């Protein structure tokens, strides 16, 4: 198996799927000549030409709407949001069009698009550029929401997302783009809605996705030194959610901490906590705790940014609480 960065893995997925299926095309700001603001689309314009790798004006509602319209008539657009912060301007197209036309038409229309790009905090890009809005998207029926944490998952899930016939919100993370990991050489894909246990453990269940899987694994390492074995469950897809994987783990450990980069109030972690308390009520030895970002807009200063984000220290603290240590 090759060792690739998530950036390379995503680029491979795009390239392979565009080679396989001529109806797949890419559009977004700087995806072509500039090779992508974060270089995920490196080399694709050269190989596929401007109609399949389209640089757009700065007009997010149009980008998403074009993807919707092209998908309606049978193409398979992949719309890149330079970052998901800007997808707020495209939200009406996603929520009122991509997610609803199949239903409103009584099943006549399908919208096989992928809306992808980095989400969450980068480094010191401040309040308007650091939002983790997965709970907004996961709230909406009609959408699929994917948030990979490794290079392997990213490639396998993006290929599934491109082939799937539903609108898929594929949220990447800039901080993970350089993260390297093993990626199979052969063709593979990972089904949407299938979670993954990233680390086994008996004492406590840590549920995390995207960048926070890294936080959870780092936390687990620290806890192990104190003899606490944490299990790290990565749902990988938030909608549909592989809840059984989470429930089975919590039934085993009796304790659960959710780690997420989003804001606390009505974050997706609340949804997980709700399902776990409902389905694992009798197995829980302690309340479910959540470690989230601070309930404020993201500050610029690096000292405040660190205080804002979830981190191993905060997770360790939460784990000790649920273990009553």
């Amino acid at each position, binding site marked *: 198996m090759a060792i690739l960065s998530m950036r390379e893995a995503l680029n491979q997925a795009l390239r392979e799927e565009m080679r396989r299926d001529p109806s797949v095309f890419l559009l977004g700001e700087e995806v072509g000549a500039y090779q992508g603001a974060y270089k995920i689309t490196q080399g694709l314009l050269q190989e596929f030409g401007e*109609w399949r790798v389209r640089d757009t004006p700065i007009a997010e509602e149009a980008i998403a709407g074009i993807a919707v319209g092209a998908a309606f008539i049978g193409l398979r657009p992949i719309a890149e949001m330079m970052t998901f912060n800007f997808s707020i301007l495209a939200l009406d197209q996603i929520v009122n069009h991509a997610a609803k036309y199949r239903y*409103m038409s009584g099943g*006549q229309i399908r919208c096989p698009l992928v809306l992808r790009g980095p989400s969450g905090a980068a480094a010191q890009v401040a309040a308007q550029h650091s939002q983790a809005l997965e709970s907004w998207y996961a709230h909406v029926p009609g959408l699929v929401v994917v948030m990979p944490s490794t290079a392997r998952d990213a490639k396998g899930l993006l290929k599934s997302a491109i082939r799937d016939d539903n609108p898929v919100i594929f949220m990447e993370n800039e901080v993970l783009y350089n993260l390297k990991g093993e990626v199979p050489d052969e063709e593979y894909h990972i089904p949407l809605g299938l979670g993954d246990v990233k680390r086994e453990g008996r004492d406590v269940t840590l549920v995390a996705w995207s960048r926070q899987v890294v936080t959870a694994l780092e936390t687990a390492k620290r806890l192990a030194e104190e003899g606490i074995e944490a299990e790290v469950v990565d749902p990988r897809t938030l909608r549909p959610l592989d809840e059984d994987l989470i429930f089975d783990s919590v039934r085993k450990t009796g304790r659960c901490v959710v780690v997420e980069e989003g804001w606390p109030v009505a974050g997706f972690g609340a949804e997980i906590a709700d399902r776990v308390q409902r389905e694992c009520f009798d197995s829980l030895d302690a309340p479910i705790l959540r470690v989230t970002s601070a309930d404020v807009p993201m500050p610029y200063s690096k000292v405040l940014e660190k205080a804002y984000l979830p981190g191993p220290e905060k997770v360790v603290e939460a784990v000790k609480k649920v273990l009553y240590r």
Partner: protein
Amino acid sequence: MNRDEAFQLYKQMLLIRRFEERCAQIYVEGKIGGFLHLYIGQEAVGVGAISLLRPDDYFITSYRDHGYAIARGSDPRLLMAELCGKATGISLGKGGSMHFYDVPTGNFGGDGIVGGHLPVAAGMGYGIRLRGSDQVALCFFGDGAVNEGAFHEALNVSALWDLPVVYVIENNRYGMGTALDRASSVADLYQRGSAYGIPRREVNGMDLLAVRSVLGEAIDRARKEKRPTLIEAETYRYRGHSMSDPGKYRTKEEVEQMMKLDPIFVFGQRLMEQERFVQAELDAADQEAVAMVDECVRFADQSPWPTEETLYQDVYVRSPYVHMKSAEKDPAWKAAVREDNVPAKLPPFAVAARVEG
């Protein structure tokens, strides 16, 4: 357009008129719920434009969408059933008045978000270019929609990339209760096209033939030169914005003035003067339209309500790339199928004549 074709379009306009007049009646009876936006007065725009489309062309519209579907030949019985929320509705009762779709005819139909379907139309145009076909996409919207950001973004990319899309502003002078001059900083909406260097035209939307000639040129340009056009069709809606609107913001005189220019009456006169039709033939066409509408209502009345199971159907497409074991805990995924629904084909109308698309 030969004599028969002209008569067909006349019949289409009549059918739309009678269909919607009946909608207003049964809305009051409570058979139709929610918002009901009538196209009465604007028929020449939709009928004229759609009569020029090829079967493989596409169109997308605002929520004021009854007329286009009928003009395109969708079965009005399925449309009436949709309005009544029945299982036999063209959208299985899930869409209602604002959401008519008939994909086999290229009708991507009714959008409830003002301006929201313009970027979608641009996307159809983009898909056509990418595919290399010579199809055309038509996009109908109102004078109020031109002030939405979506209009701006869609027109810029359509001009920038030469997309085969014809944007038709149906200027009926009001966006709900707001007169054009209280919403737009410019009076001539087609001039908005100058900001994008896009071909632009104005046309009398009460005149079917005028609509056909201006639209014909635009559709041609889209098909052959792959260039978009912005058209402003001057028209008028006789009724309120929706059933709940008494229309106090305009004078009785203004409405009566416009009704004198009624597109159906005007075209009927022309048929008699220039195409040697006699009043009796027009009257027969009218009776035929009324009879068809009767049949539509009968069909809707006799149709069953959707069953509760259908609530969860048609949200997702069943997909081999989804882990069904976990997905199926969600009833919408459980109910998902791989195929797309296709509107039912009903036996011919009992009334002799038929409406062709």
